[in-house]
């Protein structure tokens, strides 16, 4: 009897998101066809990697029902401690892969601290991250007195010169950076954990109904630990990427990026209130933010107007989600 029950295919929210991305890309391309050049498209992907890794981390915590505003701060503190470690040990040449391991581990520790406060003390994640974010921003800087490192170790700076694919075009060499592999790994990891493991399903369950998740028998601290651990690790690796790409360390440069990651996750369809969001949707959100970050000047909008556009994206996405919610409530009345 249930064999008749078929999956109902609707133009789902993720479909709308993909559509919106291509419409925006189309508008950009109409104004300036260079947007569609291989050099530019590759540049968008390269530049989206950092924000992408960070957003994947943010997403998994948002599914549990907690917003975290300290990812950029975790990135800062992880990258800073990795750089200091390299300098202390005098590693100039090597360690492009190792830096991700160290920064990831440092970030995971920070993430777990946030998760501990959320689980053990029941403080909402947004509050924990506001408080801990300030600590991560400044603690190491206070301890060392360093806010600016003019030249990063050579091994780190190699990141944005290491390509996995290069194509010669009329406009120059188009290349895909090594960082794309890290981004791809982050997407794959979060997708696998969320969709293929029971812990991941538990993270969705936790976002759906915390009490019910406990009644079903989930190990709640394990769920928080996994979500926050992965968040911290990815934030740490993203921070490392950010500073390696900038080739120098200026402590607070990264902090503005928190807003971009939040916008990418929200446009990507993550709804904290009831544990909703798909990895596919978030990837589209990341690409959209990447497009806007890199190409506004190509269509004649000054790049400092970027924040207005990002703010607009956040509001529109939330408004659309609320509108859908209202429509569903209307139906059930």
């Amino acid at each position, binding site marked *: 009897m*249930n064999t008749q029950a078929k999956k109902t295919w609707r133009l789902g929210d993720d479909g709308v998101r993909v559509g919106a991305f291509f419409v925006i890309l189309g508008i950009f391309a109409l104004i300036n066809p260079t947007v569609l050049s291989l050099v530019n498209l590759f540049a968008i992907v390269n530049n989206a990697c950092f924000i992408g890794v960070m957003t994947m981390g943010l997403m998994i915590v948002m599914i549990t029902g907690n917003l975290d505003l300290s990812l950029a701060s975790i990135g800062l503190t992880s990258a800073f401690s990795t750089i200091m470690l390299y300098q202390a040990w005098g590693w100039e040449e090597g360690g492009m892969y190792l830096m991700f391991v160290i920064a990831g581990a440092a970030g995971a520790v920070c993430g777990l601290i946030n998760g501990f406060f959320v689980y053990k003390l029941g403080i909402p994640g947004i509050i924990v991250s506001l408080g801990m974010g300030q600590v991560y921003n400044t603690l190491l800087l206070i301890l060392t007195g360093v806010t600016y490192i003019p030249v990063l170790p050579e091994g780190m700076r190699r990141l944005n010169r290491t390509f996995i694919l290069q194509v010669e075009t009329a406009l120059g060499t188009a290349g895909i950076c090594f960082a794309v592999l890290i981004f791809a790994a982050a997407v794959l990891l979060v997708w696998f954990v969320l969709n293929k493991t029971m812990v991941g399903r538990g993270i*969705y369950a936790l976002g759906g109904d915390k*009490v019910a998740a406990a009644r079903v028998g989930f190990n709640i601290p394990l769920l928080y630990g996994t979500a926050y651990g992965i968040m911290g690790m990815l934030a740490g690796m993203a921070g490392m990427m950010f500073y390696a790409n900038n080739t120098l360390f200026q402590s607070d440069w990264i902090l503005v990026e928190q807003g971009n990651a939040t916008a990418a996750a929200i446009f990507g369809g993550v709804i904290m209130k009831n544990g909703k969001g798909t990895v596919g949707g978030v990837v589209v959100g990341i690409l959209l933010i990447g497009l806007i970050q890199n190409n506004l000047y190509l269509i004649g909008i000054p790049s400092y107007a970027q924040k207005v556009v990002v703010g607009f994206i956040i509001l529109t996405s939330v408004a659309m989600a609320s509108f859908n919610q209202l429509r569903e409530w209307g139906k059930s009345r």
Partner: protein
Amino acid sequence: MGFTGDGEELNEFYLEARGIKKSFGGILALREVSLRIRPGEAHCLVGENGCGKSTLIKVISGVYAPDEGRIVIDGNPFKKLSPSESMALGVQVIYQDFSLFGNLTVSENIAMAYNVSSGFKFSNKKRDLELARGILDEINVQLNPFTEVAKISVAQRQIVAICRALLQNAKLVIMDEPTTALTTKEIDSLFRIIDGLKKKNVALLFVSHKLDEVFEVSEYVNIMRNGTNVMEGPTSEFDRSKMIYHMTGREIAEKSHALEIDRNTPILRVKGLSRKNEFKNVSFEAYRGEVLGITGLLGSGRTPLAETLFGIVRKTDGEMYLNGRRLELRNAGDAVRAGIGYVPEDRLTQGLFLNVSIYRNIAATILSMYSNKFSFMNKRKISAAVRQQAKGLAIKAASLEAPASSLSGGNQQRVVLAKWLAAQPKLLIFNCPTVGVDVGSKSEIHEIIASFARQGIGVVVISDDLPEILSLCNRVLVMNVGEITGEYQAGDIDETFLQGQLVKV
């Protein structure tokens, strides 16, 4: 399953609770309770709010450890159980909120608890689907396993919760107030599922205070009062009044509240009232001394009508007169100022500030009445008005400073009533006034509502509880797909007739 009556043999029962005692901070919740449930039997636990039913269930499901007594499951005695032990032995509780995940699909919700208790490390959508389909087929229910649980009806969610319990090899399914949120038709299909479970030798324990359902569904009744069993036996040995007597310890006549009605002065006159897509061309009068009932199925427009009368939503057409004066309500504040009170359907979320003291809840509507033109409040007058209402309605609370959430359901309802009465309204609108209230409190609330009408306040009761409509109201209007399709004197019709009018197309 036959009844041997004495129950001497041990193995006859799937679960036995013997001499359970439990106290919280010196207050005795369970004094001495025993319970015996046979496989394949529907056992009903009835009693008023606060009699200890919920505590007993929590002892059986392992949430609380009893202070004294034994729980015997399948012949194995336990001094106490942990929730996971209890589940492993086949005891499954279906909570009133169902404990489902609205963001996940039907199949995943059904399989989730089974997956966790089986210790699976990886999730598998195909396995979930097969499990869900298997169990849905077993109880013969059609439900799309791909739908998100947030998008299905309350009745369907309950089915999902039952399936989840069955998948975990349930031998006893405990259901807490299983029919509260269901329509009559949905209740019938739930009872069919329950019959199927009984045939599979699954025992059921219902906690309910809806007596009609107790008679319809159960073979055995266990009545609790003040933390102990007062009476038990096969359902066939009970009738309604006997059961109410044992539940409350006193005789409550379920009588109709007939009143003197003044047909000359309509308090409320509604002419051609419409709201786009919700209801149209609604006209009626409510007279002094009368309780006017409006009934209809969910979606008939009864709730939007109530909300329009109170100004929560705006009408799109039509006229409203209160004591002959035309009303143009823009919001609920206008309605309160005009002298209309509204006691909403879900008293917990709409009618009360749960975290705030009882005192402040009652005072909420009268602040402006006892304030001067500079908006300074006269605390003494407010205090006097609040205390008078609390006394008049016999609210049982340790202190008026206690939060409203500390009260039982019936007393919370009284606080909402007190709140509106303090404002001295001309018209009171009740939306399902006794949802989730036990028999004793229900008859008291009906008596209170009738006394409003006797005091000359116009009373409109909107409800889908047909016995309530028939015993409480003098005149009944039936709403069907947004229109008033019939008007009857309550004395002239019976429940079957009214039920027929509700579903007539």
